[in-house]
């Protein structure tokens, strides 16, 4: 009975805050199959971690942290006969992002050129999270966040300008 209630509560919360998952999937995956895989993995990890969620903190904050952690920890597996010393970049495929405005599509294309942790910082910055929250989620100092953001914003502007 308690389990069923928790389960229902979880489904309602995820349903309500699911845009967070979609944003993270767009930021971390360059094509539809990868996005669907990541979406599944994030929901699974959220469910597994749900017992540890403390109601005292905001659900969206907790959700961002678990989902970003899952996205960054996602690794690609080597192919049977590929050279495992390098990891080729997967090109950005906008085929299923047609519903997004052109400006946001360009933004995602630019973000796809950033490194994984840089993407997390950009996403949290776009979501107007404080420097303290970003620092806490990543595990770095507030000063470090500020330094990194200056560099990332400059790189992002450069990339957007290139794609426009």
């Amino acid at each position, binding site marked *: 009975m308690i389990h069923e209630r928790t389960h229902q509560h979880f*489904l*309602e919360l*995820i*349903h309500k805050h*699911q*845009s967070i998952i*979609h*944003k993270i999937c767009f930021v971390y995956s360059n094509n539809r199959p990868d996005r669907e*895989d990541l*979406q*599944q*993995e994030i*929901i*699974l*990890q959220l*469910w*597994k*971690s749900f017992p*540890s969620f*403390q109601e005292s903190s905001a659900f969206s904050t907790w959700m961002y*942290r*678990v989902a*970003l*952690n*899952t996205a*960054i*920890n*996602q*690794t*690609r*597996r*080597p192919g049977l006969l590929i050279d*495992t010393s390098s*990891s080729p970049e997967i090109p950005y495929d906008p085929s299923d992002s047609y*519903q997004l*405005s052109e*400006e*946001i599509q360009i*933004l995602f294309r630019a973000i796809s050129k950033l*490194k*994984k*942790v*840089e993407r*997390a910082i950009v996403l949290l*910055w*776009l979501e*107007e999270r404080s420097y303290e929250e970003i620092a*806490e*989620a*990543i*595990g*770095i100092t507030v000063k*470090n966040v500020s330094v990194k953001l200056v560099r990332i*914003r400059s790189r992002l*502007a*450069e990339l*957007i*300008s*290139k794609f*426009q």
Partner: protein
Amino acid sequence: MKSIDLDKIKAAWKNEKAFESFKLSEADIQGFLGKRSKDISQLFRTGLFMDLVLKSLVGISLIGILVIFRENLNLILVVSAILLGLLGAIRYQWRMMGKIPEGNIPDPVIRTSLENKILFYHRHYKKALYVGALSNSLLILSGMLYYFYFKYGEIRPFQWDDYLVFGATMVLGFVIGAFVQIKQLNFQIKQLESCLKEIDEETISTITLRDQRNKKRRMIFIVLLALVCGLLLLAYFIFR
């Protein structure tokens, strides 16, 4: 180059209505909960579990050997010693399963989660892979003994080239088993290491990494030496 107003883009992000249009129903979300995780921790867990199953099967087949060759005291002693070692290895792998880090519990900090997984892999899981690869050699040994039993009804005396062929097969079974898994996991761990490096260059100091490499080399040498000695001892007891 055009000047880009990032605050304008941030405002566009905030007002983007399409994010709300990608809707999953509660049934869709429910459907995801029954799927298998592809997280690297799950990969560690599955690998260990599969190895435990394989080791258990090898153990059962070796017990069968004890029953079949119950008259051969030397063989009973050698196989019993191998079985004891196998039990130790099963216990080791079982305990290793309990040490696998759960990245998202209780409150995930990305750096801590990455550190835990990378350090678990270097400190514990690589050893577990070598212990796991021993299953291949034992499986070959067990298969070899059954082959003799079904073909000749006994263990026939070996010539020097028999020692070479069977010994090399067992060593190859070990090396290939360990190599394939380490190669695959190294590829994945490197991706996590590059994220950690991105967060903070000083997180895992150069000294720690060098220590890990030295320990790894020592471990490979010890395991290979033990395997070769074991093979020679086994051959001596069975065929002298």
